[in-house]
């Protein structure tokens, strides 16, 4: 069995995971080429064709998902927004994942006061109203994408910190870790070689769900005006702006909302699959026909 080929064939056997890959791939494609192809269409206002209802191509294919209150194509904005959203959500999630999990693994592996202090720092962040943090940072600095990412990442670090710490503390006493110590392997190398590969799958699952949180938080920040700045558009901003019109033009907020849901659910499904597929001890389960599979 060669790595890549077998992974692909495993993936093909799981309908849910394959669907998730297709959805995420499509979104990635939109994010990558959407702004180039549809960038103008997404900002082109047509004040004489506002709030067109969706599922009609009477006004041209670009209005298949309706138009917003400035007569812009919702479909085009969705596609372009995918890029902005991903450029915020992905780095934010990755950043909090990286920092939180590295810190958590270190804390859990080291134990003692390091562990205690780390947990307390996590407590502080968690019991802090993250919106205050956001308002402060984006007030003192400017609401740029980088600051947005930083704020979202900091607010979510404790989630990974806690999970990683708990798992690392458990792994710390595992025999294979002891074995590595007997070779003289340093702590850093043990974390890298033994702790991280075991902890990351769980963290990835957390990260998948966190995607949603980050996108929705970005939406509330946009609503306060400290999120993505127009004419850039993100799903969160679309949701925030469309929220005012839920009663009269539901599609403006619902489609980006659905995009968030789809992305999150797909990411969660894929993470669940990857968790099993990435574990050599569990991988065989995926080769079973669906009906006969038992769960991890």
């Amino acid at each position, binding site marked *: 069995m060669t790595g890549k080929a077998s992974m692909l064939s495993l993936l093909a056997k799981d309908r849910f995971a394959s669907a998730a890959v297709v959805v995420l791939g499509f979104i990635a494609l939109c994010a990558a080429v959407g702004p180039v192809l549809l960038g103008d269409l997404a*900002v082109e*206002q047509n*004040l*004489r064709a*506002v709030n067109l209802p969706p599922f009609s191509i009477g006004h041209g294919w670009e209005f298949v998902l309706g138009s917003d*209150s*400035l*007569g812009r194509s919702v479909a085009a904005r969705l596609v372009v927004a995918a890029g902005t959203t991903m450029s915020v959500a992905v780095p934010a999630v990755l950043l909090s994942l990286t920092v939180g999990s590295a810190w958590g693994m270190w804390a859990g592996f080291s134990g003692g006061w390091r562990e205690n202090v780390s947990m307390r720092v996590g407590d502080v962040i968690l019991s802090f109203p993250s919106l205050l943090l956001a*308002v402060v940072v984006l*007030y003192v600095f*400017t*609401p740029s994408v980088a600051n947005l990412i930083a704020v979202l990442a900091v607010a979510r670090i404790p989630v990974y910190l806690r999970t990683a710490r708990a798992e690392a503390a458990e792994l710390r006493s595992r025999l294979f870790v002891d074995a590595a110590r007997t070779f003289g392997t340093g702590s850093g190398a043990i974390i890298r070689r033994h702790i991280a590969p075991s902890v990351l799958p769980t963290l990835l699952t957390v990260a998948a769900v966190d995607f949603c949180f980050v996108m929705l938080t970005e939406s509330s920040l946009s*609503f*306060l*005006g*400290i999120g993505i*700045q*127009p*004419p850039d558009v993100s799903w969160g901003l679309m949701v925030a*702006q469309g929220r*005012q*019109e*839920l*009663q*009269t*033009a539901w599609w403006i907020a619902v489609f980006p909302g659905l995009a968030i849901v789809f992305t999150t659910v797909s990411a969660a499904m894929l993470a669940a699959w990857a968790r099993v597929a990435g574990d050599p001890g569990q991988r065989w389960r995926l080769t079973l026909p669906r009906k006969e599979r038992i769960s991890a």
Partner: protein
Amino acid sequence: MFPLRQATPSRVPRAAVLLATGAVALTGACSVGGGSASDAGDTVRIVLPEEPPTLEPCDASLTATGRVTRSNITEPLTEREPATGEVQPKLATEWKQTSPTSWTFTLRDGVKFHDGSAFTAEDAAFSIDRTVSSDIGCNVDGYVFGDSELTTKVVDDTTLEVTSAEPDPILPLRLSFVEIVPAETDAEGKVREPVGTGPYRIEQWNQGVSLTLARYDGYWGTAPAYASARYVWRGEGSIRAAMVNSGEADIAVGLAPADGAGDAAVEYPNNETSYLRIDATKAPLDDIRVRRAINYALDKEGLVASVFAGLGEPAGQVVPDGVTGHNPDIEPWPYDMAKAKSLIKEAKADGVPVDRPITIIGRNGIYPKAAEAMEVAQNSLLEAGLRVEIKMLDVNAWLEYLLRPFPADIGPTLLQAQHGNQAGDAAFTMGQIYGSEGAQSSYGTPELDTLIEQAEQASGPERQEKFARALAHQNDEVVRDAVLAHMTGIIALSPNVEYEPNSATNDEMRLAEMRPVN
């Protein structure tokens, strides 16, 4: 199957009740608010966007406070008629100017405060002093009187003399903001639940939940139709609208077109005018051609039709009709993109750095779809050949840009703003917004300053004419802003209630004008 749209508990489906009561039972008693679920028909139920922070009359120039307090709980000496702009008697029956700086008011007899005490000139003098000359930081003081000082003199129980340091031709109008409270009121601090002479008194303020006013039986004037009024507040416009549609409220205020009030929606001009303030001190905005181009480039008709959902009226000046100083000759700038482009090109040819990025400083929620409006503006200005970015801010951050001193290190800006002249006189507009040193002004010219100053001293028709001239000068020679539209407000009105909103409704919502249908 669902006979009534009333959410009395007995009509809620069993499952829902079970679920909820189970939940309540599990956490012990959980009733958060008091009050009965069904109000009799003699209560008018009003849903506001926010809870009044206080009912302190000397802060009544705050919309959230004034909306409840003014003319309901407390009353001023004079009252401005929104329709005509005329100043009408209220607790004062008549007044006359006895010298350029002093006025004598004759007060109404037989008026009683809610605590039963009689209203005298003593009370009126106390209220004016408390509002204008005290240290308690009254909002009305700053809003209406600025740094001008008043002195009062009680002549007899029904006669009061008010003197200003400088001549003030519109003193009676200014005094329409001073709500009268009994002399026993705390002079050193603010009160949250005032005693007044108004048709309603405060019955119960269940903070966070609801506020009930009850008809005051000893009211000197005509008794209002409703025995009581109950205010609740919901932050979400669509919920406010839904409450009227579901019969939970009779009147919902502060709605946006998209809130879905449907047939219940009633539109009214709300005296607000939206505009973009142009920071004419910085290039390229220091070139008048560019400022003119901006005015030409904005499609006000399109903006009103789309973003404001047809509500509002393209405008050419921040002083609307009905306010002293309105200039009927100033037309909205025509939408002429070609002209805008050529002006920009011309400026560019003269070395004006039109490529320098201009920032639109917007404020979320300043009016419905504020961000979208700025996107439209941005779109037009980009087309005209300028480089424009948007920065939407929350109120406090935005205020930093609105008011002097302005933040340092910012480039050229266009500031999203809205001006409402509640007082009905251009004096409340011109100095602040167009004066070189005005609190909200980023740019002025000596000529304009002179014109404004002259107008402020004038009275009668001369006052109107002078302000109008100043406005015209601004519009032709200074071009310091791009006025967008006179705005329209929406309230939702239940079919059971008869009420006609007017331009003052936002700031002063008179319960006495509401009556049940038949």
